[in-house]
């Protein structure tokens, strides 16, 4: 019995001498295996589960990052728009001030309030331009003005109208806002030869806008749709500026002729 016990103890000692080697080998295997990434993930998961402050901080961080992300996106878009705008002003073609859309009336989508007023040189009936997709076009005109704000009637509003001329033609007509449908071009004679894609510009004969501001292009000539009693064509025009997505407006000084009329 005693001998058996001694044998067992000596066997135990033999195995015990192997133990450090076994643990060292296991450690070396752990070092050599690419375990750092899964361990880091597990550690983060455990920290996330067991530390509520971390969880709360994490959700706050996510929310803040989302806000920051949307802010950066907005700044990026604004940067793009303003870069386009800079091209317009640096070309020296138009003179005026840039204004941001400060407010939109929920009940009336055809007008916007801008953050510039008489203090910045904005006048009543000042033409308003905008740039979309790199193209400058007519956006509307100022109908109310205060010291620091102004109301701009957009060209898709039903109350809006402007004298217009066809590209490369001596034809002149009148554009009218038509709400969601865009704008209509009126008073184009039946016998005139207009084509789809023809561009429409402002005409100086209206005394409200300077000549040559792009309004839009004809998407439907109206040939064949005229009725027997019609004396004019009713072409449909797609405006170059979408009133619903305007963020900045370029406000030009009102024509002197218009101001004189006002004074009278």
């Amino acid at each position, binding site marked *: 019995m005693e001998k058996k016990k001694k044998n067992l103890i000596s066997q135990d000692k033999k195995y015990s001498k192997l133990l450090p080697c076994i*643990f060292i080998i296991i450690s070396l295997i752990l070092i050599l295996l690419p375990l750092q990434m899964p361990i880091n993930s597990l550690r983060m998961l455990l920290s996330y589960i067991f530390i509520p402050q971390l969880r709360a901080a994490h959700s706050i961080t996510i929310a803040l990052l989302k806000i920051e992300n949307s802010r950066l996106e907005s700044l990026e878009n604004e940067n793009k728009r303003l870069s386009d705008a800079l091209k317009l002003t640096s070309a020296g073609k138009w003179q005026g001030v840039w204004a941001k859309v400060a407010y939109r009336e929920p009940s009336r989508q055809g007008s916007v309030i801008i953050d510039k007023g008489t203090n910045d040189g904005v006048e009543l009936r000042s033409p308003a331009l905008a740039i979309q997709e790199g193209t400058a076009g007519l956006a509307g005109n100022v109908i109310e003005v205060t010291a620091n704000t102004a109301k701009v009637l957009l060209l898709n509003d039903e109350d809006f109208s402007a004298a217009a001329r066809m590209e490369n033609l001596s034809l002149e007509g009148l554009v009218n806002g038509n709400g969601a449908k865009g704008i209509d071009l009126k008073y184009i004679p039946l016998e005139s030869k207009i084509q789809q894609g023809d561009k429409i510009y402002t005409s100086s004969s209206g005394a409200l806008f300077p000549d040559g501001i792009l309004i839009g292009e004809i998407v439907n000539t109206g040939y064949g749709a005229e009725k027997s009693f019609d004396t004019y064509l009713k072409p449909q025009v797609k405006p170059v500026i979408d009133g619903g997505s305007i963020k900045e407006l370029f406000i030009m000084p009102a024509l002197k002729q218009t101001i004189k009329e006002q004074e009278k």
Partner: protein
Amino acid sequence: MMRFLNVFFVFIAATILNWLSIELFSALEINIGIMLAFSLIMCGFLGEAGCYGFAFMSGLFLDFFSDVLFGGYALVFTLIMFIFYRIKDKIDFKDIGPQVVITAGLNFLCIVLYGICGLLFTGQFLWQGLKSFIAGSLLTGLFMPFIYMFATKYLIFNVLKNNNESKKLF
């Protein structure tokens, strides 16, 4: 089984104390070797298998919370325990003097070995800083008598204290 439960209880207590020491001393950039201290203490109450097992697990615990070289501390702790197990019968580890000196010395060695381990496996010496090397090791040595007293009084129960014949883990 009761022995194992007691060892597990000591391990959990050691991890909590280790966390507390990190909370207290991390601002000073000092790393106290609580897990090493507990491994040395447990060596006196466990057999060779339990001794290496506890040290290995303690090292693995530190590896889990380390950003580099998973398995490095496990290797170093096993090596340290190999050395300690060879000398422990020649010293009176229950005495305060040897406790302070041996623990501080082994903590120095632990930091150096871990650095070398990093040099071998990652290509850069994993240096914990001179402050941690000197102050951390000295403080570990100085805290050792208190940790030993606390562990033997409140953490290590009679199942471990009395059963010294076989010193088996289970």
